[in-house]
C-alpha cells in the first residue's frame, strides 16, 4: 500500500490551480498517514470552506466538508462522540484563523486529540485573493490594494499559547520534513497543529511579484528560518529580518488531552 491508495482517484485531477501547493501538502499528509497503519474505515477527514478545505473530498475515507471556519467544532463532535476514529483536519489560513479563530484556540485549549494541517497561503484563495489574517504587512490583495496595513498572526504562537500539545511549521518546499512533522503530530496524543506555508500562484503570487510558481516556492524556501538557527541567531544578538518565518518543531508537550482513544 502506498499513500496514493488514499486518494479518491475518480475525483482527480482536483480543482486546484496549476502550481498550487495544496496538492503537495495533501501528498505529505497522506504519506504520513500511510505510515500509521490506520484503518481507512476508522479515519475521518474534516474541513471547512476554502481551496484547502476541498482536500477531504479527494480522499477515500469518510469525510466531512463543513461550513467556513467551523471544521474544528465539527471535529470536536466527531472525535468526542467516537474517540476510536482518527480525525485529521485540513484547513486554510482564512478558514482557521479568520472566521475560525475561536474554534482554533478552543480546540487547542481542550487539547482534543486531533491533527490539524493548515495550508497557509497567506490569502483567501477560493474567493479570489482577499487579504487574510496571515497576509504579511504590505502585501497586496484585492482588499488590500494599497498593501496590507494590519499585522498578521503567528498561528503557531497562538496554538502554543492556547495549549496545543504539538506545533510545527514547514513549507510546501520541505516535503520530507513536512511529512515527518505530520507523522509526529498524528502520533502525539492531544491537539497537533502543523502549519504548512504554501504558494497560491493564482491569487497571492500574481499580485505580489511572483511571476512564476517557482519564484514563490523559492521565496518560501529562502524566508524559512530553522528554529535552531533562529535560537542561535538570537543568542548571538543577530537581527532576524521581519519577513522571515520560523520552521521546525515549535513545541511538543504532554498537557492533558481530550478524546484520546482508549
Amino acid at each position, binding site marked *: 500500500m502506498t499513500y496514493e491508495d488514499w486518494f479518491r482517484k475518480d475525483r482527480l*485531477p482536483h*480543482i*486546484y*490551480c*496549476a502550481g498550487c501547493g495544496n496538492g503537495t501538502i495533501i501528498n505529505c499528509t497522506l504519506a504520513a498517514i500511510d505510515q500509521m497503519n490506520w484503518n481507512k474505515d476508522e479515519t475521518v477527514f474534516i474541513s471547512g470552506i476554502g*481551496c484547502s478545505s*476541498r482536500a477531504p473530498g479527494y480522499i477515500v475515507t469518510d469525510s466531512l466538508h463543513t461550513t467556513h471556519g467551523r471544521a474544528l467544532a465539527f471535529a470536536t463532535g466527531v472525535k468526542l462522540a467516537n474517540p476510536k476514529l482518527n480525525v485529521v483536519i485540513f484547513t486554510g489560513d482564512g478558514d482557521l484563523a479568520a472566521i475560525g479563530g475561536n474554534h482554533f484556540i478552543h480546540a487547542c485549549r481542550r487539547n482534543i486529540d486531533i491533527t490539524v494541517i493548515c495550508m497557509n497561503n497567506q490569502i483567501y484563495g*477560493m474567493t479570489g485573493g482577499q487579504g487574510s489574517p496571515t497576509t504579511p504587512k504590505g502585501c497586496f490583495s484585492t482588499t488590500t490594494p494599497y498593501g496590507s496595513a494590519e499585522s498578521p498572526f503567528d498561528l503557531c504562537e497562538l496554538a502554543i499559547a492556547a495549549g496545543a500539545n504539538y506545533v510545527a511549521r514547514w513549507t510546501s518546499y520541505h516535503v520530507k520534513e513536512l511529512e515527518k512533522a505530520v507523522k509526529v503530530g498524528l502520533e502525539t496524543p492531544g491537539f497537533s497543529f502543523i502549519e504548512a506555508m504554501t504558494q497560491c500562484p493564482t491569487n497571492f503570487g500574481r499580485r505580489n511579484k511572483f511571476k512564476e510558481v517557482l519564484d514563490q516556492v523559492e521565496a518560501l524556501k529562502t524566508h524559512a528560518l530553522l528554529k535552531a538557527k533562529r535560537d542561535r541567531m538570537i543568542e548571538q544578538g543577530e537581527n532576524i529580518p521581519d519577513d522571515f518565518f520560523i520552521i521546525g518543531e515549535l513545541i511538543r508537550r504532554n498537557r492533558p488531552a481530550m478524546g484520546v482513544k482508549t
Partner: protein
Amino acid sequence: MRHEIRFSGFGGQGIILSAVILGRAAVMYDNKFAVQTQVYGPEARGGASMSALIIDDDPILFPKVTNPDIFMIMSQEGFEKYGANAPESAVMVLDSSLVHSRPKCTYYEIPATQEAKQTLGRDIVANIVMLGALITATKIVGEPALEKAILDSVPKGTEALNTKAMKKGIELAAQSGSKNP
C-alpha cells in the same frame, strides 16, 4: 437588433476581458445597450472559460444569452463545450492556432495566438487580435469604439501594443475572409 455573442477559451486568455471590452465599446462609444455575463466558480478553473455578451440598440430585457449568433472561440475545449452547436446562421471567429475543429456556420480562421506571439511578441494580446477580427467580421461595433474601449481597459504602457494587436486582427479577418462549411 439584438446580438448575442459567446466568448470561450481557457483561463488566462482574457476571454472575460474581451467581452467586457466589446460591451464597453458598444455602450460607451457606440451608444448602444449591452449586458455581459460569465461563468464563475472553481469549476471554471482549468477547464474552458466562457463569457457572453448581448448588444442591442434598445434596452435589454432578458439578460442571458440563449441563442448566440456570434462566437469568438479561442480553444479546442471551448469550441467543444460552447461552439460546436453554433447554428448555421451564426458567425464564428476562431483562433485557428488553437482550435482544430470547424463549425457548421460561417467562420473566420484567425491565427491570433500565433500572430500575437510571433508578430507582436506577446501572446497575451491574442484576444485583442480576435476582437479586431470579430468586429471586422460582424460590424457589431465600430473600430473607433473598440479602440477606445481597449485603451480604457489595458495596463498603462501597453496601449500601442494593443492597438497594433487590434489592427492586426482587422487585417487578418479582412485577409482571410469568411469561410463556409
